[in-house]
């Protein structure tokens, strides 16, 4: 990055998403509106959050009647993830339950359809690819309610043709080196 000071650039969206949805004061009192016991977030919104950790906390499930086939089709991801689980699951130390996690993650991530890899790619230079534009939300915003189109137009510029292979690599690496010691606190 080079400059010493902190920034609030367009790529800070990731921080905003995590802080606003996963942190911040949570009220568990009669005064707060809740769905169920302590779930404050709307159900559709929770499904659109591409996170298995958060999903697990909330016991997230897809809404009744979600067309999982369609979801897989749109995402194009599960096909890569599942064989990988099988292939690499045997040679890991201390990775119990990872396969499950990955499957959950895949399903949740696809609630917000994209055509590029959702697993982040360690090789991509974030500065070279500033595809998160603060303004693009507003143009897609009103009226059509089509999450699919919005998501595709957002990620289209960045999703390379080699996305499939990179997704595989990234998810394998991620699984290998990052699970298991993710626990906060």
């Amino acid at each position, binding site marked *: 990055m080079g400059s010493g*000071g902190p920034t609030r650039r367009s790529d800070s969206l990731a921080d905003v998403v995590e802080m606003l949805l996963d942190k911040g*004061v949570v009220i568990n009192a009669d005064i*707060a509106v809740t769905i169920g016991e302590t779930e404050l977030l709307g159900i559709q*919104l929770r499904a659109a959050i591409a996170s298995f950790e958060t999903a697990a906390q909330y016991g997230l499930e897809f809404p009744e009647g979600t067309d999982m086939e369609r979801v897989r089709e749109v995402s194009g991801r599960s096909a890569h993830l599942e064989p990988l689980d099988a292939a690499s699951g045997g040679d890991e130390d201390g990775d119990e339950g990872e396969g499950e996690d990955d499957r959950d993650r895949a399903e949740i991530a696809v609630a917000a359809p*994209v055509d590029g890899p959702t697993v982040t790619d360690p090789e991509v230079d974030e500065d070279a*690819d500033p595809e998160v534009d603060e303004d693009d939300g507003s143009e897609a915003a009103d009226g059509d309610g089509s*999450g699919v189109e919005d998501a595709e137009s957002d990620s289209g510029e960045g999703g390379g043709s080699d996305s499939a292979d990179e997704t595989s690599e990234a998810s394998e690496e991620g699984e290998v080196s990052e699970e298991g010691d993710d626990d906060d606190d």
Partner: protein
Amino acid sequence: MTDLDEGRYLYCVVRLDEGAEPEFSATGVDGEPVSVVAADGLGAVVHPCEALYDSDAPAEIKRWLLRHQEVVDEAGEAFGTPLPFQFDTILKGGDDRVREWLREESETFRTHLDALAGHWEYRIEVARDEEAAAEAVVEGDAELRELRDRVDEASEGTRFLLEKQYERQLRRELRARREAQAGSLADRLRPHVRELHDLGERRSTGLDVGEASDAEPFARFAALATDEGADALGDVLESIAAEPGVEVRFTGPWPPYTFTPDLGEDARGTNA
């Protein structure tokens, strides 16, 4: 979905100057008018609303989140470090009920607002070139080098097994190196912050709106720091970013989302 007759969407709670009526207005989520409901020297930054915000369209959620953040930023500018609430926190009842709640909780709010005053949250992510890291590990590990040579010389039958062994060992070494580096990174940051929270290597929450192109970080922290602390952090991070193959992301100042208290029982365990 949960509809209510009268609700108040809550952005944050702030400390008000004694006596003065707060003058604050902002445009909230979905264009709603934001105001401050005051009681007991505290202000709740709210807008009137009738239902939870819920959508399955990432672009819409993103717009809401950014708007929400904007409002909390403006409140922070006007009133100092706010106590920020989770997105979609809605209070039942109108302004009177909100005032009542502020009074009920005033001691808690004061304690936390005082503790956080003058501090903001900063987010730090350090990513590194995984290939370079792997090379460095192999170069520094005689056993791995030998194993690699054996792979090169092996016949087809044994090669597969040797390769597996090599990869497994390399991954183990990489993980150890990663942990050591993250640990020493934390040691270098800690003197400049009041609190340092390890966020793990992966984002807990994401939204598929094209943000996923970031390099995979190997260490992520949330830091609670003063302005001076943030300057010092910047200097440390600059020297870290100067190391080959290392990339640093340093964002803020943010409201102290990660350093908020749990209110009430059974609060979700993830809040620091």
